[in-house]
């Protein structure tokens, strides 16, 4: 017979970020432990419940009792158990004693060590309650917690103080002790709507009891859905579209047990502040949902998720409107101040802010960016005047009060301010997009001026930090070099920009000499950045052997690297590719062992037809490959190589490379060396052989 088990741990309000992870962890560890204790009748999924005040799990089909088990314990060998007179030896008596029985009661079993004394007994299964008494405290203690705390004068430690423990099996409350609490059948409803203890008379009715009598929606995802629905409905009434980031919905769901959406308004005058600032204020400070109108402009309204079906919702609305007003007023004050100062006038004050001690101030960095932008725009034929202007203004918004108060507005504030001064969209956008991509999955900079600045900014940071020997170690990456390197690669590859990283870092290193006597270590940024290509491609599902094969060619121009990776990927779909890769590997091994110096091939020394055929094939393929390489047509170059497969296989079938004739041998090695070179032009095909 099996029934549902419910375990609920009541807490003072848990940190929002832990509510869901804690409950899913409890659900999976409790059901796994029940399973291994053979207390699960059938393998059914547990249900996790999570609110700010409780983590709970319902496990269906739990057995009330572990089955009894017959167990056998083996002792000394019979030969060692009795003396010649048949009397039991001390070893035998000791075993019997340890089993708690007389020597006569012992059985005998035979295993590969021969016949042994044995004690067979019935291990009585534990009741579910006894098992929980032993297991539950440890399971709770092992839940993932960012930081534990103590409270009152006890030793118990948990994420927040605990308040109650409710354990019900079928219709029976179980008594378990954990964290200084003793369990019974009592849960609690909503703190204000249902403050009395709430009896769970049936484990299966847990969720419904909480919903109907407790005014609590215990399922996290149900609250998320509810929040989305309510926010959408209010937004519809207001004629807007809500900004509904998943993270904000989940945070709100973790802050309330009974979500009730309430809309409020703020003064139109605040709309003169960039919407990003207002949205950030609403989301980060107040967990409000912002609303956009049909043109994508911010509406002077917000939606908050309260935890109460208020007797007077107007009170909650007015209260929230009171709170947001001074916050928005602060933002507007800073913005209005900033708007009165031309952005460019901040250039000289950049001298007062240190970028990095050895690498100088933000002003020094700006000078380097101007210089490096000039190099990049020259390489990729961008407008020199606009790129230089964007570079010169690039860090000015860091001096504004808006960015000081709202650091996430860096770049965005600059774009608005310079746009309002009548600057071109290309320069204004560059100020924002120099920081793109901000995180994985974000778009890279999309205008060419923005791309130049984004490239220069990332290259300068990478080169500079490497030049002073502070490359990232382990998880420590205070300057965000991993992100900068990946962002640089993504910009160059995804925007199809023909720029060589070796030249870029050399130019950056050159610029660093204004601050550093010796900037040679800046070039260490090159291999570091190229190394990021591995994760860039494996994240896209491209086999790492392909990346390794291209890596072997020491390509330093990311866009070229990318063409080769995709050419190799499609080459691998050709039927000839495996054999050719294998032959190449074999060829490489032979060359490695021979230690011979490469030399020219002399066709007159060919003695075998297969040798001649391979020589001819290499020669004609070389011509084709060179032509394709000249136009960076790596697909065609690799396809041409496919024609080598048959002559190569035939060569290895019919020709003995290591003949006694040294001249012929050297000539054959030279032929293989040519083959190997040819097969390493686009990528090292020998790497593809597994």
């Amino acid at each position, binding site marked *: 017979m099996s029934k549902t088990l419910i375990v609920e741990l009541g807490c*003072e*309000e*848990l*940190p*929002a*970020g832990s509510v869901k992870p804690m409950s899913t962890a409890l659900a999976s560890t409790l059901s796994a432990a029940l399973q291994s204790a053979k207390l699960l009748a059938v393998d059914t999924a547990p249900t996790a419940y999570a609110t*700010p005040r409780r983590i709970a799990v319902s496990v269906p089909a739990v057995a009330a009792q572990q089955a009894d088990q017959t167990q056998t314990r083996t002792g000394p060998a019979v030969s060692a158990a009795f003396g010649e007179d048949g009397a039991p030896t001390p070893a035998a008596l000791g075993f019997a004693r340890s089993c708690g029985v007389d020597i006569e009661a012992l059985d005998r079993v035979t295993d590969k060590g021969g016949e042994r004394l044995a004690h067979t007994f019935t291990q009585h299964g534990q009741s579910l309650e006894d098992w929980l008494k032993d297991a539950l405290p440890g399971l709770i203690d092992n839940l993932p917690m960012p*930081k534990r*705390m*103590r*409270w*009152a*004068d006890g030793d118990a430690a948990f994420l*927040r*103080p605990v*308040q109650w423990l409710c354990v019900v099996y079928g219709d029976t409350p179980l008594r378990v002790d954990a964290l200084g609490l003793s369990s019974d059948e009592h849960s609690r409803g909503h*703190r*204000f*709507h249902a403050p009395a203890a709430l009896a769970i008379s049936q484990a299966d009715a847990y969720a419904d009891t909480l919903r109907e009598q407790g005014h609590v929606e215990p399922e996290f995802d149900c609250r998320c859905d509810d929040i989305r629905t309510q926010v959408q409905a209010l937004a519809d009434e207001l004629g807007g579209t809500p900004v509904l980031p998943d993270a904000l919905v989940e945070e709100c769901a973790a*802050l*309330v047990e009974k979500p009730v959406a309430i809309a409020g308004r703020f003064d139109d005058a605040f709309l003169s502040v960039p919407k990003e600032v207002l949205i950030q204020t609403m989301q980060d400070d*107040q967990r409000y949902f912002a609303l956009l109108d049909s043109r994508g402009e911010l509406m002077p309204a917000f939606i*908050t998720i*309260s*935890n*109460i079906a*208020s*007797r*007077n919702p107007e*009170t*909650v609305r*007015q*209260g*929230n409107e*009171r*709170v*947001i*007003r*001074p916050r928005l007023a602060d933002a507007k004050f800073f913005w209005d101040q900033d708007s009165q100062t031309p952005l460019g006038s901040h250039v000289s004050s950049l001298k007062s802010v*240190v970028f990095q001690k050895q690498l100088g101030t933000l002003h020094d960095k700006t000078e380097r960016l101007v210089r490096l932008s000039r190099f990049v725009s020259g390489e990729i034929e961008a407008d020199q005047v606009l790129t230089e202007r964007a570079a010169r203004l690039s860090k000015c918004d860091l001096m504004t009060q808006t960015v000081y108060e709202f650091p996430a507005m860096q770049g965005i504030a600059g774009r608005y301010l310079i746009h309002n001064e009548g600057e071109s969209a290309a320069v204004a956008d560059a100020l924002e997009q120099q920081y793109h991509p901000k995180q994985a999955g974000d778009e890279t900079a999309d205008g060419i001026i923005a791309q130049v600045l984004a490239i220069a900014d990332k290259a300068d940071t990478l080169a500079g930090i490497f030049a002073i020997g502070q490359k990232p170690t382990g998880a420590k990456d205070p300057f965000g070099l991993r992100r900068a390197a990946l962002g640089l690669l993504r910009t160059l590859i995804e925007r199809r920009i023909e720029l060589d990283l070796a030249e870029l870092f050399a130019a950056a290193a050159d610029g660093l000499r204004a601050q550093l006597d010796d900037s040679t270590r800046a070039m260490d940024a090159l291999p570091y950045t190229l190394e990021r290509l591995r994760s860039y491609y494996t994240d896209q599902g491209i086999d790492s052997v392909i990346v390794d094969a291209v890596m072997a060619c020491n390509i330093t121009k990311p866009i070229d690297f990318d063409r080769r990776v995709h050419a190799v990927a499609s080459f691998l779909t050709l039927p000839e590719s495996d054999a050719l890769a294998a032959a190449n590997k074999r060829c490489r091994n032979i060359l490695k062992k021979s230690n011979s110096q490469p030399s020219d091939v002399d066709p007159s020394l060919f003695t075998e037809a297969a040798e001649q055929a391979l020589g001819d094939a290499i020669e004609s393929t070389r011509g084709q490959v060179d032509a394709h390489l000249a136009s960076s047509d790596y697909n065609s170059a690799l396809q041409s190589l496919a024609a080598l497969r048959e002559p190569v296989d035939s060569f290895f079938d019919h020709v003995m490379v290591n003949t006694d004739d040294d001249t012929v041998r050297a000539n054959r090695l030279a032929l293989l060396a040519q083959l190997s070179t040819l097969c390493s032009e686009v990528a090292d095909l020998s790497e593809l052989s597994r």
Partner: protein
Amino acid sequence: MTADAPARQDIRTFQGMIATLQDYWSKQGCIVQQPYDMEVGAGTFHTSTFLRAIGPEPWHACHTQASRRPTDGRYGENPNRLQHYYQFQVVMKPSPPDMQALFLGSLAALDFDPLEHDVRFVEDNWESPTLGAWGLGWEVWLNGMEVTQYTYFQQCGGLECKPVLGELAYGIERLAMYIQNVESVYDLVWAHTPNGPITYGDVFHQNEVEQSAYNFEHADVDELFHHFDACEKACQTLLELDTPLPLPAYEHVLSASHAFNLLDARHAISVTERQRYILRVRTLARGVAEAYAASRERLGHPLLRRHRTEASS
């Protein structure tokens, strides 16, 4: 209110609200203490919190405390920001199991009906780098407004807090502005008098104007640096005595800490130096905490003894 109920304070005045909180918490077993008579950055600096959080002795107290935050001065022009404002501080050690409920009771005493207002506990982990103290808890939201910091102290002056002290720090100007429904702190009614209402502005506006000018323009930077060093030295000397004097030493920590805050307002401390000054104050605070713990031990933890005697009688 029924006719025979005891006369209630008028919570719609600043002083009535404070009196109501004091009355409520005294009924919960807290002694009503008075503010510390030195400049401090927060109620936590009062010995009633910082030192009483240390060691095994129980402690239950409440009091207002003026907080001085020189950098927050706005010359009396910002309706929400002040360089001198009040916190209402409640400390309970060990933290009672129903402390949340007691706190909600205090909101009810201020006439906040929890079925009308949206009250929420939002994670907020508190740390004071200068005091070497940290705790976990919440900011309490009332209709989206942070009205109270609620913290379970875990460490103080680098020492484990055992038992744990629970601390409530009410932002009373904010609460009063909400209750009185005014937009500017200066419009708060402090009290109704026979000569008409006295406002918060009447009491403090001139002070905000003058102190802001002092903090930002006139505080003598050289003298403050000197004062900081002198306080540090005095504190160290008092702690190195054969019988250390942690309480006077602590006042020098407070004084050094305030000098640091003033220097900060004068932009006299660079970003890199800032850390170093914070560390110097923390080192002093740690020394005081250890000396205080030792001194209470030498005295035989009198409050603990009395607590036990009463519990057993």
